[in-house]
Structure formats: C-alpha cells, structure tokens
C-alpha cells in the first residue's frame, strides 16, 4: 500500500484522470503549480502564482472578509443545510461524539458516522443518500495548538457531505465540486476568483482516493475526498461503490464571512464574550487582527523553533516576546477554556467521563489544562456555567446538550475536588524531587502526569523556572489515542472445512433435548455437531452445560459460524446422538442476563444519563455489571437502584426481541443500543424491555421482567477511575443468598442474646468494650 505522499505523486502524474473536473474546466479554471511549494492547484485568477495554502498565502480574510453578509455560527449551518436540502440531500442528526459503533474512542471526523465493521472489514453504511450532517467531532492530537493558532480545536463541527455512488444512485466528483462551488458562490456570495482548489490525496483504513481541498483567501474551507480505490493482493482495485466524503469545518464558513481575528470568536461568540467579562482581560481588536494574521502559522507540530517563531512575530508587531506573551497568553487561555468546555459538554452528554483510562484520559487532560489556566491567571470561573452557555448557544442544532447540564455539573465538581487534592500532593512530591536534586525532565513530567495526575503547570507553580515542553500534551495523549484493541479474529482451534452449525436456541428456546450428528472431534475434547441447542459463551453470558450422549458438556464456544462443545468422556465422530441442555442453569443465566439489562436501566434512571455499560458478565452464581460513573455509589443510591430494578421486575414488562437492519435499529432506538460496544454484523438482534431499554444483544432472555424474580445487589465497588462495578443475583440464586444471610443473622442474634434489630448496636458495644480493655492491657 502506497503512503499518502506516494499516492499524491501518483495521482498528480495522472492528474487528467483524477483531478480534471469538467465543471471546473467549463467555468474557466486552470491547473497551475505553486511556485513556492510545488503543489498543483486550480484557479480562475490568471495572475495567481502561489497556491492558497499558508504560508504560501497569509490569512488575508482577517479584517477583510470576502463576503457581503456576516453570518453567525448557527446561521452558517442553516445556510449550508438549506442549500444541500434544496439540492436533494437529507439532513441527518449528529451521531454521538463517543464512537460506539466502530473501534475508536471518539468520532474524529464526519465520515466515521458511517463506518461499520463486517467480519473485521470496514464497510460504509449510509442511512440516506446523499446526506449532510453537522457532526460534532473530538480530537486530542492538537491540544497545545488549541487557543493559540486561532483555528485548532479539540471539539469542532464538521459539515459532512456524503454520497454513495455506484453509477445508478448518488453522485460523483463532477456534481460534488459543482455543489461545493455553488455553496461558496451562491449561498455565501464568495467571488469565484477567490476560490482555489488544491490537489491532495486521502488514505483510509482500507480505501483511498484523490481529494480537492478548497481555499478562500488563505483559509481551507473544506476537503472533498473521492474514495474510489482499495488495495488487494492483486493490486489496486476500483470500488464498486465509491464514496464522496466532503468534510468542512463549520466555524470556517462563519469565520470567512466575519474575518474575526480567530475562528474561536465566531464559533464560541457568547462564551468568549462571557469569559472576557469574567476575567476582565484587555482586548484590542486591531492588535489582535495583526497578531492573528501572523499567529495562524504558529502550528506547534510544524514550527520547529517556537521561541524563534514568536520572536519573529514580536519583531513584526514592534514589541518584545515577553510583552507579547503577557498580552496574548490570557486570551489564548480563554479560547482554550471555551473549546475544552465544549468538548466536555459533548463527551459527558454522550456518556464519556474524565478518568485515567481509555478515552476518558483525554477528557481529564483538557479539564486539568483548563484548571491549570485558571490557577495561573487566578480566575475563579464557573465551568458549568460556561458549558450551559455553550448548550444554549448550540440549542438550534443540538437541543439535547442542555438536558445534561446537571450531570456535567456533578462530574465537574468531583473532578475539581480531585484536582485540589492533587495540588496538595504536588507540593510534597515536588518538594521531595527538588530536595533530592532529581531532574525534572520531560520523561519525569510525563510520569508525574500519568501516575499522579500532576500537570506540568502545577509543577511550575512550585518550580517557576521549569520549561514545559510545547508538545507535552501531545506526548501524554498519543498513547491513549490509538484505536481500541482490534477484535480477536484468530483462534487456536481449527474449524476450517466445517459447515456452519445450525443454531437452534433462538428459534426454540424451550427445547432442551435434541438429537444431532457429531461432525468432528477436535483435539480429543471439542465436539462439533451439525446443529445445537447449547448456547455458546457470548455477550458476557456463560455457556450452557449438559450432556452429549453420556459425556458431560463443560463449556461451549463459537468460532466464526461453528459451535464447539467441550466434553469429558468418549463420543465418536459420525455418531447420531441425543444431547441434553441443563435447563436449570439455562434458566438462571437467562434471568441474570435480563436482570443485567434491568439494573443497567435502573442505574441510568437513578444516577443519570452519563451511565453506560462498560462491561458485564452473567454466570450461574451471580451477575456483574460495570458502569461508567464518576464516584463510589452511596448506600442510598444502591438501595434506590435495587428498588427501581425490582419495580421493573414487578411490572411484568414483556421482553421483545427483533432482528433489524443496523441502520434501521440505530434510527429507531439510537446509539444506546451499543451498550456492549460495536457489533460487527449487518443485522442486529435488539432486546427491548418495553420502552425502557433497547440493546443490541445476542444473549438469551426471559419472556417478561417478572420471570427474573427479585433482584438483590450484594456488592458495589469503584473498580477503576470512572467505572463502578455492581454484583447482584436474581430469582432463586438471590433468594438462596438471602436465606444464607438469614441463617448467619440468626446465629449472631443467638451469640449476642439480642433481637435482630439490636444486633448492630450490640456489635458496636462489644467492639467498644474490646477496644477499651485492649488499651488497658
């Protein structure tokens, strides 16, 4: 597979095939090569010699926008939406920023909405064709640039224009470029001569293609990717279904019409206004317009010598680096706070919490970066209030954000307390390091952050001379940005050449005895039948046990489409044999599985909408559910969850199971269905408890909630940052446990010689007496 620059070279050589768009030719666009950087670009301007990509062109729109109308952030979206709707596109609601349908932590681009896995391969799944979506995205690989460059974000909205093209439906390059050209010229009123298309290429997980980026006065507005090839063992192949994937930052449309010093001024307009009031920082628009034109080039990934770059800017502005920093850094901090609070608002709304693991790690990094700024400038800001202003500002596009402000408030409170505790610890740790004359180098700073949650800004408050690496947050987050663990596709047991096992337990869940043919015995212990009623371990539900002939079945697993049964004892290949599933165990597993869905529902109702299933296991002895929650559960919360779960049990709510196309299931029930993570199937089995809960689930369930029997939560524990575990049992297993407790209590009352109700009091007295006598001793 060629890398991006090799592809660019290849496409550029074959430019007539990949980039020659008749629509542009008809309009009079000419292909040129930038005399500065060598990139190929298309323009109407006969005098243009340079491409429009900085540094070849400065941000000439700042203070000098190319449009007559000045559009706000929301108005810009409405303009874009109306334009595409008029041109036959369906406007979709945003997908969650927490990516639960594909192995990524976050939705990092609009096209991710339509990524799905099928048998380990990426496929596109579009709910409408063509479509447009204002997709809020989160990215954490640019943190040091956020607030500084005027255009980098951790949270931004990508306008995603998509079309699936197979020769009959959808549209391809010509129409895409015509639409994007018309959007800029007709909907936004930009002079066609201002538009420059630059040739580029895009490489995705297993597809690639050429792309055209479009610029206006130095600002890249969008990138139209034409996904049309895939790499196979026999070489490059054209895709049968090609994809138009045009992504454009929403803030850029608004920015180009307003020409403000930074894009934050338009994307976060009411938030910046509020923060300026709260912090009282001085703001001289003329100065910042001049500064922003120059600071647009301050990309910390690209600028090798940051201090030299800042010195050059300071010289051009006729000031010193120190004075420039003093003037600029508070403003950069409020821009960063505006961005980071929005990222947290979206992430918490969609069920991700700050923590020290997985995607939550990135959220804590930005939260602590904000708190660091507040410490540095001695600002007492109400972060929840800022999130609320965001939610109100974005209400016309994302009305759901405002409903989560209470959750956000609680979570931010807990995190702020944790940060305060860290600050107290920091003082002692840093004091020890300084006393021992240990080096405070980059490696040590990263270790302090990773193991103690101590930010370099906090260290700097005790060690003022400390040099914080510009890319510190890039380094600490890069290991946490990688894709989630890939699905396990290989197994040790070889089932090649075997036909798929006929799965019978879904169609006949109440049949426990059946006859089947033994097709193969693998490694003398794993039996493969032609059909099976044994449920293999999956979806966190332990497998059935029973007998194949007289041989006990100890474990059942599924590899691909083949079910294998681990037996103890002898059976023969080719035998047609009677098999029995242990009904009693199956019943308990079913009850524990339905109970898990019920407890998950109860947790969400009692604790808040931020609760998602993080993991689950259903055994015959107990059920375990791990949920996302920011704090240890109180006794009252546990009691409330148990009471609510048992109310659901008592209501005898029917459990409905339906098989739906993935897109239909997502549309009907939303992304809550992915409680167990991404499902690599085109059709989903949706298990619903009335209108309370809908989950994609392969497990076996009761017919209604009352069949579960009462649920008893017997243990809860905060197992890791942001994750709480609940252990519980239902029906006869719960009853057996409670009767054992009753026996123990009876024994205790006998030993203490008191009534049951007085046991705690008596135990306390006994303990006090023992302690007192021990002291005397």
């Amino acid at each position: 597979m060629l890398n991006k620059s090799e592809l660019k070279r290849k496409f550029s050589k074959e430019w007539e095939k990949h980039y020659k768009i008749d629509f542009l030719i008809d309009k009079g666009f000419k292909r040129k090569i930038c005399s500065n950087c060598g990139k190929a670009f298309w323009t109407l301007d006969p005098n243009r010699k340079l491409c429009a990509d900085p540094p070849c062109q400065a941000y000439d729109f700042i203070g000098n926008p190319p449009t007559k109308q000045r559009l706000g952030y929301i108005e810009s979206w409405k303009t874009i939406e109306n334009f595409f709707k008029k041109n036959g596109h369906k406007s979709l609601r945003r997908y969650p920023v927490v990516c639960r349908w594909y192995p990524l932590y976050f939705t990092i681009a609009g096209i991710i909405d339509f990524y799905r896995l099928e048998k380990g391969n990426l496929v596109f799944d579009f709910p409408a064709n063509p479509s447009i979506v204002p997709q809020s995205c989160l990215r954490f690989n640019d943190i040091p640039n956020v607030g500084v460059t005027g255009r980098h974000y951790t949270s931004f909205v990508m306008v995603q224009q998509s079309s699936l093209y197979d020769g009959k439906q959808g549209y391809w390059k010509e129409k895409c470029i015509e639409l994007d050209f018309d959007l800029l010229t007709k909907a936004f009123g930009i002079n066609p001569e201002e538009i420059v298309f630059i040739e580029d290429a895009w490489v995705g997980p297993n597809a690639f293609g050429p792309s055209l980026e479009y610029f206006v006065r130095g600002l890249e507005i969008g990138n139209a990717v034409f996904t049309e090839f895939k790499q196979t063992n026999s070489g490059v192949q054209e895709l049968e279904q090609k994809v138009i994937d045009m992504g454009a930052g929403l803030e850029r449309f608004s920015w180009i019409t307003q020409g403000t010093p930074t894009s934050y001024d338009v994307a976060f307009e009411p938030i910046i206004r509020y923060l300026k009031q709260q912090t009282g920082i001085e703001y001289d628009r003329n100065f910042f317009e001049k500064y922003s034109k120059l600071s647009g080039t301050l990309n910390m990934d690209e600028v090798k010598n940051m201090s030299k770059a800042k010195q050059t800017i300071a010289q051009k502005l006729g000031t010193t680096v120190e004075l420039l920093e003093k003037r600029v850094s508070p403003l950069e901090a409020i821009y960063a706070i505006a961005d980071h609070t929005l990222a947290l608002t979206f992430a918490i709304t969609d069920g991700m919490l700050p923590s020290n693991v997985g995607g939550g790690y990135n959220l804590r990094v930005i939260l602590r970066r904000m708190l660091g700024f507040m410490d540095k400038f001695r600002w007492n800001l109400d972060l929840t209030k800022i999130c609320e202003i965001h939610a109100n500002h974005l209400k016309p596009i994302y009305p759901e954000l405002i409903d989560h402000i209470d959750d956000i408030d609680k979570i931010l409170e807990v995190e702020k307390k944790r940060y305060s505790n860290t600050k107290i610890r920091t003082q002692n740790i840093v004091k020890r390091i300084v006393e021992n004359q240990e080096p405070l180098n980059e490696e040590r700073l990263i270790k302090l952050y990773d193991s103690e949650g101590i930010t370099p800004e906090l260290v700097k408050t005790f060690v003022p001379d400390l040099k914080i690496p510009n890319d510190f947050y890039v380094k600490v987050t890069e290991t946490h940005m990688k894709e989630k663990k890939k699905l396990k596709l290989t197994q040790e047991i070889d089932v090649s050449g075997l036909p798929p096992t006929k799965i019978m337990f879904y169609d006949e869940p109440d049949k426990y005895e059946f006859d089947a043919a033994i097709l193969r015995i693998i490694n003398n212990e794993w039996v493969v039948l032609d059909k099976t009623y044994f449920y293999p371990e999956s979806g966190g539900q332990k497998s059935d046990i029973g007998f194949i002939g007289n041989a006990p079945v100890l474990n059942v697993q599924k590899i691909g489409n083949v079910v294998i049964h681990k037996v103890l004892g002898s059976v023969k290949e080719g035998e047609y044999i009677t098999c029995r599933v242990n009904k009693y165990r199956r019943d308990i597993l079913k009850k524990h599985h339905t109970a898990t869905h019920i407890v998950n529902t109860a947790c969400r109702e009692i604790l808040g909408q931020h609760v998602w299933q993080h993991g689950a296991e259903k055994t015959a002895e107990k059920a375990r559910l791990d949920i996302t929650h920011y704090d240890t559960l109180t006794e009252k919360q546990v009691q409330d969850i148990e009471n609510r779960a048992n109310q659901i049990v008592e209501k005898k709510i029917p459990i409905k199971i339906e098989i739906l196309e993935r897109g239909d299931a997502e549309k009907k029930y939303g992304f809550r269905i992915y409680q167990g993570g991404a499902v690599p199937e085109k059709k989903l089995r949706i298990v619903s408890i009335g209108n309370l809960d809908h989950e994609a689930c392969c497990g076996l369930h009761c017919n209604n909630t009352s069949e579960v029997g009462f649920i008893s939560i017997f243990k809860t524990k905060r197992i890791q940052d942001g994750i709480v575990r609940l252990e519980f049992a239902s029906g006869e297993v719960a009853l057996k446990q409670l009767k054992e407790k009753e026996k123990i209590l009876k024994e205790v009352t006998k030993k203490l010689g008191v009534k049951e109700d007085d046991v705690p009091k008596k135990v306390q007295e006994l303990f006090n007496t023992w302690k007192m006598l021990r002291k005397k001793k």
Partner: protein
Amino acid sequence: MENVEEEKMIDKKEWNKLKKKQNILRQASAILNVKDEDLPRIIERFQNEIKEMEKKFGKL
C-alpha cells in the same frame, strides 16, 4: 449448577423481610470490617477475649 438447590419463589413481603435481615447483617459486619460469613466467628472471638481480659483485670 450442581451446588445450587432449587428455591421456591416468595412474595414481596417475605422478600422485604429477608432484605431487612441482610441489611442488619451488613451494618453489623461493617462495624467490624469483616465479611458477613465471618461475623459469628469474630463475635465469638471478641466475646472470649473480653472474658479473658476481664478475668485478668479482675485478678489484678
């Protein structure tokens, strides 16, 4: 499931009684920071040690 005997299901009232007993036991175990099943043994140990210490102090 060989170790799990079948239990007949009970009504809400009976269930609540059992839950109440479980809570009492949980509170008592929490005071001594022990598992529920260890509580009778630990109480007995405390009772014996108290008796011994009282005896010892009585002699003094």
